């Protein structure tokens, strides 16, 4: 579990954590990068959209093992839960820009969806929860 404040200067610290965690769990190097990118973009969205760039708001991250049956085999995975206490998210706003437009912004959610197998926004009481799950290919698990 990692708890931090919503100051973007801590983004680099979280990347360091997630990079090593995914490496330790045996994800291939390109997936370590993309999972790290997904978490970074998700945190940036919390800082910007949930907390309107306030620097002192709480963010909590939980890391857990995940498991699923896939093609008749058990796959191990990593579940990452990001929790903030900002206002409830309007699900209609949860979309990036079409990728064929050339303009800044609207890329974060694309990067997140590209990187992981599950992206799930839920509201629990006063908390926004973003759940990301990425499974390891069979055999590559060192969990």
């Amino acid at each position, binding site marked *: 579990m990692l708890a931090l404040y919503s100051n973007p200067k801590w983004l*680099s610290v979280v*990347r360091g954590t997630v990079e090593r965690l995914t490496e330790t769990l045996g994800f291939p190097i390109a997936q370590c990068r993309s999972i790290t990118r997904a978490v*970074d973009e998700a945190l940036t969205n919390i800082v910007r959209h949930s907390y309107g760039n306030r620097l002192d708001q709480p963010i909590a991250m939980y890391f857990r093992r995940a498991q699923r049956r896939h093609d008749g085999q058990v796959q191990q995975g990593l579940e990452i839960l990001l929790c903030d206490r900002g206002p409830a998210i309007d699900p209609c706003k949860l979309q990036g820009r079409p990728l064929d437009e050339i303009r*800044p912004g609207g890329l974060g959610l694309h990067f997140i969806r590209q990187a992981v197998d599950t992206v799930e926004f839920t509201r629990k009481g006063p908390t926004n929860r973003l759940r990301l799950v990425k499974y390891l290919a069979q055999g590559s698990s060192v969990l």
Partner: protein
Amino acid sequence: MQISTRRKDKTTIFDLSGDIDFANSPVVRDSVLREIRESRTPCVVVNLSQVRYMDSSGVASMVEGLKASRDLGSRFILVGLTTSTREVLQLSRLIKVFEVYDNEEQAMTS
């Protein structure tokens, strides 16, 4: 993240290093846009060879640089893409939109 700039004839080269993320991409964006819009430099090269990580706000800054230079008829070039920066531009489907060279020398002679 560190930015330093060099001039060669009519070209300004931005040497970026470290991580470009939401904590510092506004600084990158502002210095690049100032060079294009206020200094009216005919050619801006952004050297990414020492960049360890670039997030979507870093990509957005590059897009803004590109758009600003198109508006003014100047050039905006990216060089020294690392695995990580190349990946992020590919994911954004923006890699073909930019003028990209392996290194500064190739950019200068093109």
